[in-house]
């Protein structure tokens, strides 16, 4: 068993928190893990990505080779398109619907959605809207993680425990809110992916 995941988004959207939660869950589930992060730019607003590899045997490369990712999770729809060369034929894409428009030449949204919908397995999720509806705007990333969770090789319970580990410092209330966000996200795709 081996699952390669590319995580994408824009600086400040919480991509690395998603990566951290999956990483903790994978390690605590006894899987081998490699996870690269993009660090370095403090400024917000640039494209960021992370590669996560999980397997039941040792993993060599820290990077995912082109054309081999099983899953692409993106906090932003155009960013999902940017990393398509990583995706394996028939790989799954779970992306936020709401665009983050901070550049003058952002493409027409219709074209972005059309390119996404041309893929064989894609879930465009209203994670931000769901989070806002829950009065937990900062938890949009965890809603999206919930939506992507049926495609991950770790159990929902392990991911919820990992949310506790990663957000534990911020207190009980934040953890509970994020677990609720996770469940709302998971409900979006759970039916579709069975």
């Amino acid at each position, binding site marked *: 068993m081996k699952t390669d995941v590319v995580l994408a988004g824009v600086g400040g959207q919480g991509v690395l928190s998603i990566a951290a939660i999956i990483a903790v869950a994978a390690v605590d589930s006894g899987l081998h893990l490699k996870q690269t992060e993009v660090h370095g730019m*403090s400024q917000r607003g640039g494209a960021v990505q992370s590669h996560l590899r999980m397997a039941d045997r040792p993993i060599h490369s820290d990077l995912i080779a082109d054309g081999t990712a099983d899953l692409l999770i993106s906090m932003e729809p155009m960013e999902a398109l940017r990393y398509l060369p990583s995706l394996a034929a028939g790989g799954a894409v779970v992306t936020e619907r709401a665009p983050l428009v901070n550049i003058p030449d952002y493409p027409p949204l219709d074209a972005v959605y059309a390119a996404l919908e041309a893929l064989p397995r894609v879930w465009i999720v209203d994670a931000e809207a769901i989070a806002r509806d829950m009065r937990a705007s900062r938890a949009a990333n965890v809603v999206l993680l919930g939506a992507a969770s049926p495609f991950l090789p770790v159990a929902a319970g392990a991911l919820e425990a990992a949310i506790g580990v990663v957000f534990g410092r911020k207190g009980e209330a934040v953890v509970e809110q994020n677990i609720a966000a996770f469940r709302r996200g998971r409900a979006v795709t759970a039916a579709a992916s069975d």
Partner: protein
Amino acid sequence: MERFVPLGNEALAQGALDAGLSGCYGYPGTPSTEIMEAVQRSPEAAARGVHRSWCANEKTALEAALGMSYAGKRALVTMKHVGLNVAADPFMNAAITGVNGGLLVAVADDPSMHSSQNEQDSRAYGRFALIPTLEPGNQQEAYDAAAYGFELSEKYAVPVLVRLTTRLSHSRSAVARREIQPERPLKLPANPQQFVLLPAISRRYYAGLLAKQADFEAEAERSPFNRYEDGPDRRLGILACGITYNYLMEHFPDGCPHPVLKIGQYPLPRALVARLVDACERVVVLEEGAPLVEELLRGFPVETGRVHGRLDGTLPRAGELNPTLVGRALGVEVPASAYAVPEIVANRPPQLCQGCPHGDTYRALNEALDGYARGRVFSDIGCYTLGALPPYNAIQSCVDMGASITMAKGATDAGLRPAVAVIGDSTFSHSGLTGLLDVVNAGAPVKVIVLDNETTAMTGGQPSPAHGHIEQVAIGLGVPAEHVRTITPLPRQHAQNVAVIREELAYEGVSVIVARRECIETARRRRRAGA
């Protein structure tokens, strides 16, 4: 089981702490920053009182680490690759003095220049200084390199270079910790002249360093970081340095059919290399950064045609390697991308944050310079380098830390008057002060604008070394007090700020304008930490 899934940088830091580290020194720089940050976060380091503060620059950091080593304790100094240029003087000379307590110089290179001005390969410095160099290939090796490196350093009384690259620095994997060693006691060098590099003494020490080269090579032959893995198909042999070994093995999950020499310690183990080259028809060399090993293997001027790598196009001459590039170089079948990037995808370059003080300063500067011919604003490295791009288009240089002030001075010497130097507060403390002294001594009409966002923002908000006394420093260096001005870069102060800059542009001497407002990201983090 304890969960320890560190970044390569964190693994090295923990390895050093577990090996009895007494002092960590450094100046921040991507991708090296998390080494010091891991030591700073460590409860053990706090409990033990391990010294763990950022320094003014890489040179001061390396010298302080050497001082800790002089006193008999184990020291670690961290920097990014270009930082080693700044620290090159103590680095080269510490190779001659040698060390007392173990000294590790951890340098993180950035092939592909993800966030750097160049992709220089620090292994060249290790060879230049004639000291052993370790190049861990995974997180466990990064952890193990610390204790092993300290031992090597103390055994031969030399500094040891640990070379990391972005990918390992910033990638996580599980690591097993080893036994925890106590810190070393304070113990001065047995030879009171060990650190006195007078020519007559230096010549003796240099001969000693040269004599140790054979030992360094023998260590590399038996090092756990170097490994010969035989394989039946000898039409091809592969020499894989550091992390490239992972990219290689990715193609052979059940074992590589070809002989492989994995290299993680230099100087190169000649016997192991000879074994590979003798056994195989062709050899492909995989290395991140410059083709240093490949050049050695090819020799000069004899070209056997059996060695392949970055120099003959088997691999790209520049840039980071990855599994796809390595697979192609070896002729194995690699998956192709199933989907291309749709044409509509636009670039999303980093930008100054909404409300960043630097933006307000650039708007004021651009307006103040209206009426002067363009091309007179020299700048430096930090968040504010984004001022070179639209919408600001405000600066015309970014070369190396501190170069704004000194390049502006040279340009005024050539007749470009006035010239402006735009420099961040951390960069100003790192290497702006000596340049400012040159400007003062020359009386050059350089207008130095210190962008004082009260932090080292670019690398994540570390403290800024001259925080709180930039004006005093400028006056102390001889800038007339009335030409040391302070402005607050805010939209509502715009007109006043333009006026101040114009006044100073009109003055025929050196001016320093401090544009002070805290970085909003740092302020946000500080509020959160306080909350």
